[in-house]
């Protein structure tokens, strides 16, 4: 069964990528303006297509290779939207940082294509291919800043560790394949369900490796160690890119592999997930405190957020999954804002990496400071920002699933986490600026950033629609 119209977004993105590739090669352009425009056009086109296809009922397409369902659609939409913002924030950065011609856009598009495949995959093969298609361009993006030793080091670390993780994932998949006799997610689920307790061991063996691979992509403890280094070493724009959309895609990966492929093994994987999530919240929040580099701090915070997101899976209930999805979307927004801020702040030869670089931001650009304030409070999970409601959903799912203790642990660690966000706010608001020059940011970026920041506040005041969508997906 081949339903081509359902893969129109992929086809469109691929086609446009090739266009961008050719344009970039053959059209002389100043400052990548055309490439940029085409890239944004691609995203908008894909967004429109996906939205138009949203109402098509769940369809397993291409002989079970991919599935068209609301989960895939919503994740894709989030990926497009966040990517639009990512490209917008990065434009100025890439203009003055020497990161090649149009390649970053091109690689970004390819990576997004990979994510699209990943989130709608319904077979281990497409899953793996999507994952790799997502990851490979990212490895390159990270290392793309050719004159930076740190970038190439980050790229190398990411690449090697990523390859190990892929290897582990594949090893696990091979075991699952051996045990269930299929690579098709639906059939795997069936096979897993059919396996009796005695024969579950091989499944668990595979499961552990699969979870390791997933955990790596999500960047959670103890598979997280690449993350701070890569986030710090990569150029700001690349950090921004990898901090947002891939996390959303990783949610898809997690959902497909755990919830769709192994629902009956939830007792086992939820145990793993609980440990991983506690460790992540712990390590992420604790180590972030000791950071002076804001990218690194946000990297650790992203580890912690990964841990929070996993809490939804720990609950093993539809409410938990939808809360995790909501959390992921919210995190994408927050992360977009946080890293976007750094990208926007960066000037030629100035990466704005140190927390100290934000000193007295309130005096230099109060609006920017205010938006950043919202973003940071949202990350800390303080109402009325949406970050709170994201956490609330998770906690409610946990408490409903009789995991009250886990909710308590999560909250206590959230308190620890609040400290370092507060420190950034302190630097922005309480400290005197060392340099009183106002910070100028181009209008469209300001608008985008304002939308980004205010969305966190607005969604905090009116979160119900988004939460409702997330609920529909898993109910």
């Amino acid at each position: 069964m081949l339903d081509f119209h359902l893969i129109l977004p992929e086809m469109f993105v691929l086609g446009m990528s090739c266009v961008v590739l050719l344009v970039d090669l053959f059209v002389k352009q100043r400052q990548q303006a055309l490439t940029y425009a085409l890239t944004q056009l691609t995203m908008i086109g894909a967004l429109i297509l996906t939205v138009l296809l949203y109402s098509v009922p769940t369809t397993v397409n291409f002989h079970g290779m991919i599935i068209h369902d609301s989960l895939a659609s919503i994740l894709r939409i989030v990926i497009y939207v966040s990517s639009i913002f990512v490209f917008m924030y990065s434009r100025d950065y890439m203009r003055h940082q020497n990161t090649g011609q149009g390649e970053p856009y091109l690689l970004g598009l390819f990576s997004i294509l990979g994510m699209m495949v990943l989130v709608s995959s319904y077979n281990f093969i497409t899953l793996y291919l999507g994952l790799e298609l997502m990851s490979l361009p990212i490895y390159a993006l990270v290392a793309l800043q050719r004159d930076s030793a740190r970038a190439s080091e980050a790229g190398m670390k990411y690449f090697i560790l990523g390859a190990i993780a892929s290897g582990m994932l594949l090893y696990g998949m091979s075991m699952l394949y051996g045990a269930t006799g299929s690579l098709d997610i639906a059939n795997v689920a069936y096979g897993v369900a059919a396996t009796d307790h005695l024969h579950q061991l091989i499944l668990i063996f595979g499961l552990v490796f699969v979870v390791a691979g997933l955990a790596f992509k999500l960047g959670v403890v103890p598979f997280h160690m690449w993350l701070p280094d890569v986030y710090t070493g990569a150029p700001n724009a690349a950090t921004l890119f990898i901090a947002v959309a891939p996390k959303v895609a990783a949610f898809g990966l997690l959902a497909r592999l755990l919830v769709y492929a192994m629902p009956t093994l939830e007792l086992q994987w939820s145990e793993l997930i609980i440990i991983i999530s506690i460790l992540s919240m712990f390590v992420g929040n604790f180590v972030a405190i000791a950071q002076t580099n804001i990218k690194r701090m946000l990297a650790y915070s992203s580890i912690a957020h990964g841990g929070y997101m996993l809490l939804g899976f720990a609950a093993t209930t539809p409410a938990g999954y939808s809360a995790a999805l909501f959390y992921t979307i919210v995190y994408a927004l927050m992360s977009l804002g946080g890293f976007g801020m750094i990208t926007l702040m960066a000037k030629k030869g100035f990466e704005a990496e140190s927390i100290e670089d934000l000193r007295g931001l309130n005096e230099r650009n109060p609006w920017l400071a205010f938006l950043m304030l919202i973003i940071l409070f949202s990350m800390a999970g303080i109402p009325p920002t949406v970050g709170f409601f994201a956490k609330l959903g998770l906690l409610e799912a946990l408490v409903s699933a009789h995991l009250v203790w886990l909710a308590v642990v999560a909250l206590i660690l959230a308190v620890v986490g609040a400290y370092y966000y507060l420190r950034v706010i302190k630097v922005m608001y309480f400290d005197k600026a060392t340099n009183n020059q106002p910070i100028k940011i181009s209008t469209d970026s300001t608008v985008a950033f304002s939308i980004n920041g205010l969305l966190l506040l607005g969604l905090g005041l009116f979160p119900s629609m988004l939460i409702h969508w997330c609920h529909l997906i898993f109910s």
Partner: protein
Amino acid sequence: MNLVQFIFYIFSALLIMSSLAVILSRNPVRGVLFLVFAFIMSAGIWIILQAEFLGLVLILVYVGAVMTLFLFVVMMLNIEKLPPRTGVKKYWPYGILILLIIVGVTCYVIGPEHFALAAGPAPGEHSADYSNVNALGMVIYTKYVYAFEVAAVILLVAIVAAISLAFRGWAGLSKRQNIAKQVQTTPEERIRMVK
């Protein structure tokens, strides 16, 4: 133990030994060659497992192209001597531990009492007219066409990425003059007053 099994054990032993050599070799060129050897041994095992096409692909494409690329890079970088293996000397017991755990758990897990496939009957041989190439060919462009296309994109990405990473720009490659710039130069750019 029949002959096939015997060959398998030989291949396996060589595979393991060459793998060990890969990770222990101090000379990268030798490492690559041991890796090539390991691939060939695997290809043998695959063929025993009646995946002839894949075995051949492994040798022809993988060894022929990818490993050559490795070798090329190793030679290009011209790193012949490596410093002493402090890591191995210090940490080999941990290595062994890792090995033992994974292998031990694997042994435990795939015991016939836990693993249906191991307990079940061995699969029958394919009929003589079975063609692995044929079988794969039947599905790759039909059932797996989507995956195939994605794989194609991945290869494209690899090209783009590798080029954009390693390409140093035209400037490094040719010593072209910018005549316009030379003409428009001003004394200020060329003469610096020493105070």
